[in-house]
């Protein structure tokens, strides 16, 4: 009798937790939508998305987020170009080539990298990478998209490596044996059998790595220079969507068009992350 009661209580508690988390998500979403969509009382959606200038506190405010969108895209693109090949190479090395000890050391190192708080990475980037970029490219400032991309690549790498590595491990051992028995070399086996067989997991790894990059705030805010102009490349200061929210939310007057615009940026980030996660999920499940 008592046992039954206990079961009942526990069951309901768990149910409550489940419901609560759904409700929280829904509330956040509703709040975000309500605040964010209000910006379109001040500015048309086309102007907001494609407007070339972001002067939220000038009179009248100019709320074009194109520079921010492009800033995010540039930094993300740069980070992907760096982290995807290195990350996948690392995953292949760990899963296929590294001997026992090296493998453990590498995996430990990657986990450690994932454990570094982004503000610390940003700080390290500020004192080491920023001067380096400045000197190497003879720039007036090292606070550029490139610096941001490099630091973000470090953040995406652990995600890419660990998920891609899992995907490679999940390839049945018999494929590898089959390829070897046909006289394929190790590299041919990796390139022509293992990677294709793990491809959906690898795509998911890349997507999730990129998702991490797009949502990252602290480090990019510290080292990209934060200038809200349309960037023409990675060697210029730029500003991302996330850094804009973080930098300006504190000073935006509640209920002002600036305030609503920041929420609208939040919606856009939400949509991007959501799309990336769903896509990654689709690939992961195709894999199963």
């Amino acid at each position: 009798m008592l046992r039954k009661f206990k079961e009942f209580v526990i069951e309901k508690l768990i149910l409550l937790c489940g419901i609560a988390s759904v409700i929280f998500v829904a509330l956040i979403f509703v709040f975000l939508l309500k605040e964010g969509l209000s910006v379109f009382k001040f500015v048309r959606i086309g102007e907001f998305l494609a407007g070339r200038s972001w002067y939220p506190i000038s009179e009248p405010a100019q709320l074009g987020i194109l520079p921010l969108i492009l800033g995010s895209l540039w930094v993300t693109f740069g980070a992907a170009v760096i982290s995807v090949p290195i990350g996948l190479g690392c995953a292949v090395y760990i899963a296929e080539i590294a001997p026992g000890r090296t493998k453990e050391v590498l995996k430990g190192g990657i986990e450690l990298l994932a454990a570094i708080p982004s503000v610390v990475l940003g700080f390290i980037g500020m004192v080491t990478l920023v001067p380096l970029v400045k000197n190497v490219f003879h720039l007036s400032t090292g606070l550029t998209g490139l610096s941001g991309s490099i630091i973000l690549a470090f953040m995406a790498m652990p995600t890419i490596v660990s998920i891609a590595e899992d995907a490679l491990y999940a390839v049945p051992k018999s494929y590898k044996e089959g390829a070897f028995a046909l006289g394929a070399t190790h590299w041919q086996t990796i390139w022509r059998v293992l990677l294709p067989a793990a491809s959906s997991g690898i795509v998911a790894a890349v997507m999730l790595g990129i998702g991490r990059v797009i949502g990252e705030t602290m480090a990019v805010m510290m080292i990209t220079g934060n200038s809200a102009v349309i960037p023409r490349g990675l060697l210029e200061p730029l500003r991302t969507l996330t850094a804009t929210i973080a930098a300006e939310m504190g000073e935006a007057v509640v209920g002002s068009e600036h305030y609503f615009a920041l929420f609208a940026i939040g919606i856009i980030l939400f949509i991007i992350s959501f799309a990336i996660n769903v896509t990654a999920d689709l690939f992961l499940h195709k894999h199963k």
Partner: protein
Amino acid sequence: MHEKMNAKMEAREINFYYGAVRALKNINMSITGNTVTAIIGPSGCGKSTFIRLLNRMHELVAGSRVEGHVYLDGKDILDPTIDAVDVRRSVGMVFQKPNPFPKTIFENISYGLTVNNVRDKDYIEAKVVESLKKAALWDEVKDRLKDNALRLSGGQQQRLCIARCLAVGPEVLLFDEPCASLDPISTGKIEELMLELKKNYTIVIVTHNMQQAARVSDTTGFFLMGELIEFGKTQDIFTAPKNKQTEAYITGRFG
């Protein structure tokens, strides 16, 4: 160089270790060309270990070590200066569980050619057809070469794996319990195929099925706890085994 009349492959004083565990003890075996050699013995006696050694697949197991020699046409293939990749192109292997790649039927067979740097499309196509015919699969798949190989039945998959192996142009074929996951009809087809292939290839097959060993093989080797207890003509082994343990095993009085 080691020469012996008629021996296509020859194992000499083989000892095999998984780490510190000795899995094969002083094995000597001479495999005649264009015959089927059956390897029998209870589970864990070292059958797979032995045949994987014949095309250096044992190198995939970290921490394994082999002593002794395996000669293919008089050449020691365990010699570290010989490339394992070349050995595997001459000595093909088919596994217990059919393991086609998750690609089309055509690609499965052409894979072995493309890794050998064959680029000539016509040649590849001809070779795919030829291999499928040799593996007695052509009639069943000729209209669906672009289908995913994983959609074939288990027996068809296994014949596809045989075709894939043949396309590379080996001289010796190793089968590790090729029918263990197949139904009797598919098994019959594979056995027929082996008798056919024997004309052009030398075959070694591991099997747990005594009738199968008796039906397809010319020579039989009985392994027990890492030792080759008896090796001789299949007929003799099954009708008049010299060793008590062999007799116990083939008559089913063995654990």
